[in-house]
């Protein structure tokens, strides 16, 4: 199961891709993570994770149209695959189950 397991950062990136809908390319993902997840993210790290997610088949990518920005280089847009969606849901499910197991009382005392 190791191959399909989602790491914490992988999960966040995957979620970000889903939330960015049609604008999910590396720099945008990076910015989104920086502003919303409130953590400094290096482009290199995001790239490495995107590459890994694609290898696992959780995302797919395609090159967009060339524009005048970025020196005319095309962007690579990512989108979540079915397998990606399944593993996201599964991760959420595990968490929810765990959350429900915690009695409210215990949580308040911490």
């Amino acid at each position, binding site marked *: 199961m190791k191959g399909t397991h989602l790491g914490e950062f992988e999960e966040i990136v995957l979620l970000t891709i889903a939330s960015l809908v049609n604008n999910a*390319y590396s*720099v945008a993902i990076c910015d989104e993570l920086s502003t919303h997840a409130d953590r400094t993210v290096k482009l290199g790290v995001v*790239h*490495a994770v995107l590459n890994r997610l694609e290898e696992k088949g959780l995302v797919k990518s395609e090159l967009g149209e060339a524009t005048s920005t*970025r*020196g005319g*280089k*095309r962007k*690579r847009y990512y989108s979540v695959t079915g397998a990606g969606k399944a593993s996201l849901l599964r991760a959420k499910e595990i968490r929810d189950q765990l959350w429900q197991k915690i009695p409210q009382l215990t949580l308040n005392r911490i």
Partner: protein
Amino acid sequence: MKNNATRRGRAPKSPRPPKWATKFLQFYCRPSLLEDLEGDLLEFFDSNLKTRGAFLARLIYIIDVLKFVRPYTLRKPSFANNSTARPMLANYFKTSTRSITRNKLFSGINIIGMAFSLSVGLLVIAFVSDIFHYDSTLKNPDRIYRVYSSFQPSGQPTMKLATTSWKAGALVRQQAPGVASVAILRNRFSGDADINSIDNKVPVTGLYADENFFDVFSFPLLKGVASSALKQPHSLVLTQTTANKLFGQGDPVGRYIKFDTVNYTVTGVLQDIPKLSHIQFEMLVSLSSIDLKDTSTASSDGTYMDWNNFFSNYTYVLLKPGADPAAFNAALDRIARAENASRPTDRHVALHTQPLKNIHIGGQMGNEIGFVANPVEVYMQCGLALIIILSACFNYTNLSIARSLKRSREVGIRKVIGARRMQVIGQFISESVLIALLSLGFAFLIFLFIREQFLSLNPRLDSAFSLALSPRLVLAFLAFTVLVGVVAGLLPALFYSKINAVSVLKDASSLKVFRHLSLRKTLVVVQYTFSLIFITATIIGYNQYKGFLKFDLGFKTENILNIKMQGHDDAVFAKQLSALPAVTGVSRSLLVTCLGSLTGSSMKYNDPQDSARVDINYVDENYLPLHQYTFLAGRNFLPKPKDAPETETIVNEETLRRFKIGHNDPSKAIGETVLIGRKHLTIVGVLKDFHYGTLESRIEPTALEYVANPGRYLNVKVSSTNLPATMTSIESLWKELDKVHPLDADFYDAEIEHAYSYFTVMLKTMGFFSALAICISSLGLFGMVIYTMEKRLKEISIRKVLGAGNGLLVYLLSKSFLFLLLISALIALPLTWLFFDRVILARFAYHQPIRPGELLIGPAFVAAIAFLMIGAQTLKAVRSNPARILKNE
């Protein structure tokens, strides 16, 4: 220009990321990822530009480019994913062989040149590999350390000694932390091994070692028990060879060997010590054989266990795994400080450590236990070999580019068919590698030959190096050869790969061969500069060496045979020698001077505060006349009985100057009394200054003292007629005196020659290198001339038709080459002169000046060879029939 202008016009609009970083990204990044990555980085750069400014944006860009070097972004090497790679390699090979066989002159010159230079490279690789394999057969080499001492005699530089005191070794064993074992060795056990019979004495030398020796040094024992072999007093461990020498094939363990009057028991047999070991011995004697209470052998340095007696023992330490050498060093400092503090002497002995693997290359120390390579010599060898090899590579580069007129069409066709730049480069590199590999065959044969020559240069080299082949060494040879091939082919490959196919195919002469002329000229000049430096250095060195041998030492050395007495009483022997008709005189001395060995003492005159070191020799009354020393005043020693007290001394002028005895007037100095060591001696004679040390050292104050029987040497003056007969009769006399040891006698002149033998080794090496350098650069020049002539054949023909004379043409064609030679000479000669004057000869207090003639011989010789080659080729070109050449158009 236009291009430039537009680029410049765009630049100020917005700063761009550094180009080289982008290039680097494009170089390493996988094509499938590249576009996206490049875009991302650019986008980042632009946003950084707004927020943080141009400098930071650029910096971040560079850092990001570097940070993107990750396994998943790296491009696979092109030959790995390119399905056409293997057939292309086969094709490279095939076309290379064709090209090599087609251009026989080109290939021949390059293969010969490379073969010679590679052979030197192989030799140096073998040499360096030997150095790195020193002591490599021992276990735990990185945990073995040697403790050595240093101290500073008053007024002299610090001396490093490989030895320590016995006591230091014992203290290290007791007090130092992290020590697994300490082995104490003591040098020079020598004696005549006596096994049962008187006639069969064999001289053997060895080292004393204590029972921990085998803990530290894992030399394998064939017989005996390592832990106990050296425990008992009077135990011996022999090496295999020594055991065979003494006992034949029989088992030596448990047998007795008598040295003098003491019986020693053989307790073990060692496998022979490998050649590449810095410790060498014929046998080990248990250190416990030495009776510590015996004070009869105590020297001026004290008894065995004295802290200040640090001239004979070696301390080797095996640290525990993981022990901290720094803590160990600190403990050494502590020990030395405590010991130095406890005795009020001016000698402050410090202890240091040296890892085992640094010993053989760590530079010469005093009392070295075995062979130690001089790092400077090693680097010099490597440097010289590198120059020779580069020279051969230059040849390849030059000739490849010079014949580009022919090859460029081929490259053009290749490019038209679709060869990419990398493929053209691969083609040319594989060609040069192939040539290098072909040369390796010859180089290997030459290597086998010069290996013998190299080892026989000096007995020291032969005993310290094996230069033996091993699979690893052969692999290193191959790798090295491929490297040389790549280096040689790199520039031509780049040159050809840049060729524009269209223009070359349209008109081959449009190729800008001459644009690279300055590169080629530079390479030729560099080659010749080194050749000239080598040959001039050899010539100057040779002349200086001859000068050393003929140098007026202040006394005569002709036909004087110095016989080492080896501990025998010389009275009868000397009398017998004088009775020989060929012997015209016999004298005795403690030392043979001018060979580098010396003894000395301190001397005082009237002022008790003022003492200086004087060189001393003990001689008898015949010594000075025999060597024809020149007296300035006074008289020779008078013969005196053996036990008469010493009262007289004869000094040199320098002594008078140093102490201002008799206001430097020799005749007034006679009768003055000086204190030498603890003896008050009267000056009875003053000698004109003469040499005592080698020519490296200045003439110092020197005193001769009279001893009726100084014992070490007999100086025998013989007549020069029929020397062999004289030698045989001297030898037969010696046989009567000593049956075991052979006669140890040498003529003074030969001994002086021997004292400068390191010079001959250097000269032979330099001579060899300069011959190689000249050969290789001449070959290169030869090739260049031929190609130039080929290219200019039409020009020559037209000039001829228009009426140019042969002489004029030869001058015209050869002048550019001779001009290159001249430039090389102008660079090389001053450099060589400076090097000798400032570096080499500055070490010698006395030497001949460098004559300008010596400087000019080398260039004249090289120029003659070059001129012969150039002349012959140009003459050939000039003599050709212009009609036939011009008709061909």
